[in-house]
């Protein structure tokens, strides 16, 4: 249905009309009264095309309006755009242009993949680095406080471990604080801002203080390189991106993509582990502790993951310990030896004793 209607802005009466678009004016002739109205093109408020509807607004509020519905809407739109200073406003400009639509879908797809895998996580990571150091430290402290309330803390060995760290006289940009948790779990982790938790399970498996220093140097790298904050930023940015893109009614697609995002996060966490291993070795060299301890530590972890299904190893939270061992061994620095540090040795045996106390 083709129709051109004039509205005077005062009442809702629709006046069917004919229009003649000229260089500087639009002439409107009302069908009912044959009255002719003249609009100066420079005084147009808008010339907007949406699909097959063209709305032309004129003058002060309440505006006078012309509505053109039908195929001729596009013709009038082009004609007026050519003569007026108004910017182009065609909401559905891609209409009936199949190659453009296919191109857009392809571009959209590429952009999504690129943003999802690279751009958004990178931005998320950069954004977290804007967090002031004080805030990061406080955040770590409050998470640590919550965690401590649910776990059994070994106060004596915590004190000894911090003493061991003091005797190395390390100078790091974060206040490192170690807490030992009574648990057979063979693991340790670092929170943002310097809080490190070590389980008694892993200390029990250690034979030499080198291994303990290796563990600490690995975790300290996580802290100084802000690994947990970066991971947090990456996953938060990814989920904001997904929910922004798909809106609310697609919880399921978002759910599927969330699984993909966890796999992606896992790959990233492996990169971080490898980074922590390498910098951990540098740390040990700096404080004159034989870096061989790092390899021995990996072997403890490897022993733990043995027995697990090979297939499941792919998704394990200890990413390919064997690969990490090989990477460490290929580094020549790993064979550098330092003479035994008696004070570290003493503290280490005290820690072992305190843990093995009934």
């Amino acid at each position, binding site marked *: 249905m083709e129709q051109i209607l004039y*509205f005077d802005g005062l009442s809702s009466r629709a006046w069917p009309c004919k229009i003649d678009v000229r260089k500087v004016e639009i002439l409107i002739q009302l069908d009912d009264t044959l009255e002719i109205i003249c609009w100066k093109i420079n005084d147009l408020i808008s010339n907007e095309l949406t699909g097959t509807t063209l709305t032309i607004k004129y003058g002060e509020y309440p505006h006078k309006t012309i509505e053109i519905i039908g195929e001729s809407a596009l013709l009038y739109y082009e004609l007026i755009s050519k003569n007026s200073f108004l910017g182009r406003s065609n909401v559905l400009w891609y209409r009936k242009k199949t190659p453009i639509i296919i191109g857009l879908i392809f*571009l959209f797809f590429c952009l999504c993949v690129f943003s999802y895998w690279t751009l958004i996580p990178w931005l998320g990571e950069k954004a977290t680095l804007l967090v002031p150091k004080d805030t990061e430290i406080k955040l770590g402290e409050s998470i640590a406080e919550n965690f401590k309330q649910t776990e059994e803390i070994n106060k004596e060995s915590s004190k000894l471990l911090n003493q061991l760290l003091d005797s190395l006289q390390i100078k790091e940009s974060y206040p490192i604080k170690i807490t030992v948790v009574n648990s057979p779990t063979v693991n340790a982790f670092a929170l943002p801002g310097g809080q490190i938790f070590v389980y008694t399970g892993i200390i029990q498996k250690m034979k030499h203080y080198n291994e303990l220093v290796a563990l600490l140097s690995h975790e300290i790298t996580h802290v100084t390189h802000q690994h947990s904050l970066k991971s947090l930023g990456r996953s938060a940015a990814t989920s904001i991106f997904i929910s922004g893109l798909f809106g609310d*009614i697609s919880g399921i697609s978002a759910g599927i993509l969330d699984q993909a995002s966890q796999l992606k996060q896992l790959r990233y966490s492996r990169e971080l582990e490898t980074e922590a291993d390498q910098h951990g070795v540098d740390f040990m060299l700096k404080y004159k502790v034989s870096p061989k301890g790092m390899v021995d530590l990996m072997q403890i972890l490897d022993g733990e993951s043995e027995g697990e299904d090979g297939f499941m190893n792919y998704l394990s939270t200890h990413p390919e310990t064997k690969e990490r061992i090989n990477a460490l061994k290929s580094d020549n620095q790993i064979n550098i030896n330092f003479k035994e540090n008696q004070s570290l040795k003493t503290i280490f045996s005290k820690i072992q004793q305190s843990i093995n106390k009934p």
Partner: protein
Amino acid sequence: MEYNTWKKSLKFHGNHGDLVGLRILNNILKIITLGFYYPWAKVKELKYMYNETEYMNSRFVFHGTGKEVFKGFIKALLIIGVLYAFLLFSYTSNNPTLIYVGIIVFNLGFFALIPLALHGTLKYRLSRTSWRGIHFGYRGNLKEIYGIYLKNILLTILTFGIYSSWMRVALNKYTRSNIRFGSIQFTFVGKGVNLFLINLKGIIFSILTIGIYSFWYYKNRIMFEVNNTKIIQDSKEINIRSTLTAGGIFKLLIVNYLIVVFTFGIGTGIAINRIARVLFQNIEFEEDIDADSILQTEEEYKDASGDDIAGMLDISII
């Protein structure tokens, strides 16, 4: 035999390809501009949706601009940003009292923003909507809506949520009676007790039927909103009703769900078009308004902050 003389005067013409294309384009621009294209994207989508909605052979027009929505977006971002900043600040303080204060202030802040969002959205969205050159408008007063909201939210809390049905009705009554479409007015005649019974029945039966009854519940909620709204033209009341069925809602939602899931969100535009079509084409008018005699009465209003706060709080009003 009784003939149905009610009129189906609302039509939705949305075309799936157009909206899918529009949304893809908007998303591309949102990604490239890191989200800052959002206001312009929103305006384009609204212009499209309004333009495809027809009442008595004339289309609706949305007059808002990206610039207006952008200004509102920045204000809304600041207000909500301050709330989040305060929460983060209290959380990192390590002081348990301050953490509790932070959580309480944060949640109260959100609750306090609801009337502002409601008021702002109605005021902006309606003022920027027209049909046949006549603008809609909202004459509600922010102080009054806060008064109604605070009294009702207090009663809702004291009755453990039971009073929420009466609260909804009170807000509906106030907002509907303040909507103007030129010289046309609206009124809401629903009763809190009826909404309460719909909700009670809805919740109990939905649980007992493992969710199957929820489609009837949706239907009843929509009917309550639509059938209790009346149009007043020259002191004559015109009734509206919804003919939506539970089966219709079931089909609409299930098919939409499958479309969105299997197209990984790309088909969301199709789902939105389907919702609009089913919703509008199931609204019937007892008789048509006198379309030629509506007079322009409302003033212009350009502040979109309330609309953007509503967008961020994730409450949809229109």
